Structure formats: C-alpha cells, structure tokens
C-alpha cells in the first residue's frame, strides 16, 4: 500500500517538473492536468471523497479547459 502511494507521489512530482520544463504551453497545461488528477486519487486515499470529487471535476476539467481557451487567444510557444 505504501509502495503504491510513493509511486503515485513520485509520478505527481515528475509531472509538475515536466510542466515547469516544457516549452510548448499546451503540453504544460496537460502536465498540470495530470498533477490535478493524481492529487484527486491521493485525496481519495486520504479518506476525503467530497474533496476528491471537487478536485477532479473543477481542477482537472474546468481549469484545463479555461487555460486552453486562453492560450488559443494568445501565443502558443513560450518565447
């Protein structure tokens, strides 16, 4: 059990560092969406189903959609 939790936390940190390092902004948004999804799984493992549902629906779906619509209005690459 603790091995699964450690693997999930490592995956979440790797996705966060990838969101920092990507040059294409759409890739960075998808990496931050993955951070939100793994955080929702961790919320469920910490016995908080309300918060897991809120994080999955608001953090993963709506925030990523708002980011992608805003990136379409501005430029796509970082430099």
């Amino acid at each position, binding site marked *: 059990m603790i091995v699964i939790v450690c693997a999930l936390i490592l995956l979440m940190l790797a996705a966060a560092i990838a969101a920092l390092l990507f040059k294409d902004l759409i890739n960075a948004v998808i990496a931050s969406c993955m951070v939100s999804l793994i955080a929702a799984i961790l919320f469920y493992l910490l016995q908080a*189903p*309300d918060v897991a*549902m*809120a994080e999955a*629906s*608001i953090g993963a*779906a*709506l925030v990523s*959609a*708002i980011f992608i*619509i*805003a990136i*379409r*209005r501005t430029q796509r690459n970082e430099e």
Partner: protein
Amino acid sequence: MRSVIGIVLLLIIAWGIALSLDRIPFGESKTQVGDYYIEKGREETGATNVVTSVVVNYRGFDTLGEVTVLFVAAIGLSAVLSARRKKQKGEVEPASLVLNTGCRFLFPLILLFGAYIFIHGHLSPGGGFQGGAIIASAFLLVYMGCRGRRISETGSKTVESLSGLIFLAVGLIGLVVGGRCFLSNFLPKGELNSLFSGGVIPIIYIAIGCKVGSELGGIIDRLVEESG
C-alpha cells in the same frame, strides 16, 4: 542567475519548513472540534454527510463569502474582456454528423447526473460545488462538439441571480423564524438517510449548484466568444 537565486531562496524556506514539520505528527488526532461535529452533527442538523453539515450549517457564513468571491470573479472577467460585438454568423464550419449527434445526445444525461449529485449532497459524497462543475462541463461539451451553438446569455444570468437571491432569502428567513440567527436551520429535521432530511440544507445546496453551474458556464461562454 535568476534561477540560482530562486533555488537558494527555496532551500532556505525548505530548511525552515523541515524543522517545524516534526511538530505535526501524521495520523494522530489533533483537534477536538472535529470530534464534536462528528458526535453531535447527526442530531443537530439531520444530515448524514458530516462534511456537508459543516459546510452549510455550522460554517454557512463562509460558504456565503465563497459564493460572493466566485460572483465577483465572474463579473470581473466580463468587465475586463469586453467583447467586441462582431458576430460573424455564417462562417462557422459545422462539425461532423457523428460528433454533433453524440454531443446533443449526451448533454441532457450529463445535466441529469449533475443535478443528482447536488440534490443528494447531504446523503452521499457530493454537494453543490461538485454538481455545479459537472453542469458547467456539460455546457463545455456543447461548445466543443456542436460549434455555433451558444447558451442564451439572459437565461444564464437570470438563473445565477435568482439562485443567489434564494440563498440570501433562506438566510434572512432564519433571522425571523426558528433559531433567531442568520442562516439558522428552521425546517424540520426529518428522519435520517431520507431525501427530505437535513432541514434547510438541500434547499441551499440546490441554489448553490444552479448558481455555480450557470456561473462557470457563463465564464466559458465569455472566453470562447472572445476568440471568435
């Protein structure tokens, strides 16, 4: 150069935090307020979801503040992005038939699922905010799938304002009837685990669910309209 300064600053902060993390043992009971809410929550509010009774009944004023913050953010977004009214209607290429029909078929099912979640907020995990977000993602599906269809702006603004007013009206009625304080629980508690239990909690959660759903749908509508 800037990244070196950033890493040094973050290492200093990390050292300070690591020193004080010893005082927070993981997995032990730390406060007594939570125990009081778990023991007395069922009799005093009638809702079986303790988190819902904390959010709506014991800390209902904080929820009112949060709904206000969301409202101000939606108004601010509308004010900053003043949409230049050039609606070129005839230039949107329609999506393929499969995508169009699939999205139109799924839209009422997702609305029904979101309504189920915020109506049963006091019995199972869920509530107003989660259900409202699911309703907003149903609108997002229609925007992405069937291009050229928009939700009516006056309809969404009317639903949003009316739901906020219902929340405030329920709070003000609590001043007159029942416990004589703002947002008091004045309806009968009912029996546990049934749909009509919890007093005033389902009414407030239905109002919050409609309000958050139409608000987030309005935010997405305003952002998509800007992009032309």
